[in-house]
């Protein structure tokens, strides 16, 4: 069964004012459990608005959202449990840190769930390890940490709720290349270890290509497509027309193909590209 399902989901900002804007336009989609989904789209294409519907932060202007088969907003009291089921990490999540120590900050979510002290402690230690946060930092103030470490604390704060679905909006933005790799790496590890559903919003096609199994493309408030990573990047031309790129390595291989080098289709990670190249060289 689909863990996230939307039916004709539409959201309008500022209805009835001069600034009216349709941000999400009749989106129908089904995301299966255990999937690692990448969400791509131009700035302002409605990605962030869309994902805020998945945990009931925004209420659809029309249409509905089902999480685990249950329709959101039928009963307002049931929204909070949904937020524990669908964890959402916003862009620049380090700006939400507020507690005296990292330990307390990570505990905020689990505490709101009403868990007992031991369980909270277990979850904090586990997630801290998962995001690569040394135990010695747990008793420090989050404001003393470096940018990358702050982000880890913030992500841990959502992971500690052990949500069935983890949604991350640009988790690696503003970090240096090494920091990016580490954050995305730990998210992938989390996905492989927990077998939970992960939704990853990103502008970097390389990151998306490397880590996700499926891609959801938003274009001008509409769902352009939701398909396997390979199939989506196969539509390079359409993606480029809407101002999105395909991974650089895909561009190189498409160009090679256009030049008459028969080497293989659907190349979107450097790892696969290397394999193909080596194979080709061995054949010669």
């Amino acid at each position, binding site marked *: 069964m689909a863990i996230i399902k939307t039916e004709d989901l539409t959201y309008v900002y500022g209805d009835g004012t*001069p600034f009216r804007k349709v941000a999400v336009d009749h989106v129908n989609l089904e995301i299966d459990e255990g999937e690692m989904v990448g969400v791509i789209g131009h700035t302002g294409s409605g990605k962030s608005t869309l994902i*805020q519907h998945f*945990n009931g*932060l925004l209420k659809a202007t029309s249409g509905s959202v089902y999480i685990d088969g249950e329709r959101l907003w039928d009963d307002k009291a049931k929204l*909070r449990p949904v*937020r*524990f089921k669908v*964890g*959402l*990490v*916003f862009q620049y*999540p380090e*700006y*939400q*840190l*507020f507690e005296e120590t990292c330990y307390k900050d990570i505990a*905020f*979510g689990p505490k*709101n*769930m009403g868990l007992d002290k031991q369980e909270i402690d277990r979850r904090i230690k586990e997630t801290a390890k998962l995001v690569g946060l040394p135990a010695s930092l747990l008793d420090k103030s989050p*404001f003393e940490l470096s940018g990358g470490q702050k982000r880890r604390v913030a992500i841990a*704060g*959502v992971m500690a*709720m052990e949500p069935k679905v983890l949604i991350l909006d640009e988790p690696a933005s503003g970090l240096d290349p090494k920091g990016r790799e580490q954050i995305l790496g730990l998210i992938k590890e989390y996905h492989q270890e927990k077998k939970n559903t992960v939704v990853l919003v990103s502008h970097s096609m390389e990151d998306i290509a490397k880590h996700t199994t499926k891609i959801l493309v938003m274009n001008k408030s509409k769902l352009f497509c939701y398909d396997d990573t390979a199939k989506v990047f196969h539509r390079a031309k359409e993606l480029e027309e809407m101002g999105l790129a395909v991974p650089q390595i895909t561009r190189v291989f498409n160009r090679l193909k256009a030049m008459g080098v028969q080497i293989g289709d659907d190349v979107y990670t450097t790892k696969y590209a290397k394999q193909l190249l080596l194979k080709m060289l061995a054949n010669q």
Partner: protein
Amino acid sequence: MIKDITIGQYFPGKSAVHRLDARVKILLTIAFIVMLFIADDIAGLGVGVAFTFLTFIISRIPLKMMWKSVRPILIIIIITALLNLFFVHTGEPYFEWKFIKITDKGVETAVFMVVRIVCLIIGTSLLTYTTSPIDLTDAIERLLSPLKKIKVPVHELAMMMTIALRFIPTLIEETDKITAAQKARGADLETGSIFKKAKALIPILIPLFVSSFRHAEELALAMECRCYHGGEGRTKMKQLKLKLLDLWGTLYLCLFFAGVIVLNILG
């Protein structure tokens, strides 16, 4: 929820009211307030009401914005009306029961006060609806500039106002974002006692404070990088110049003002 705050809610437009010089608009608004308060009979007040409505229509601001600007102070208006109704004891009594006494004078004062306050609010809101906050502070700076002679730091005050206004939308946006992020972690802001609700605000206020300080620091640095050193010898990108329209605007108000005075003398 937070988006409904009307501070500096500017409705861009090209109407005559929009195009008036901001300095003239401020002075006219002050004259308008004086007009409302010197009108001492129904006819005079009627002129004030007519002016308010007519100007609102000229400005082409949606009429429902009138109600939106009055709504937040509805309680104050009602209390004012009731106080006047019950505590003005001069004039012919309509109704008397124990210590409660309602007189014709009381009813009259109550109606007068309500109409005055409503017109006052609508008129001054119109100023902020039709003038961008930046123009407004610019105009205030110019109007207050004579005070520089007695060493009032007019430019600095105006700068502070501009910066404060500039950051209101930014901080509102940030509050929305932080609120959403904490709600995503299960923060409960709606239920519980007042004490519990106040405590629930901590996870929102602390990040907001931290980010305000960050903004202030970044802004100070950016200003210093551009060699900002106060108002001395500073020129303006947008020069305020009086146009023919401003004369017409002034005449338009003078007409109504004269009407009120004439009605006062006749009445």
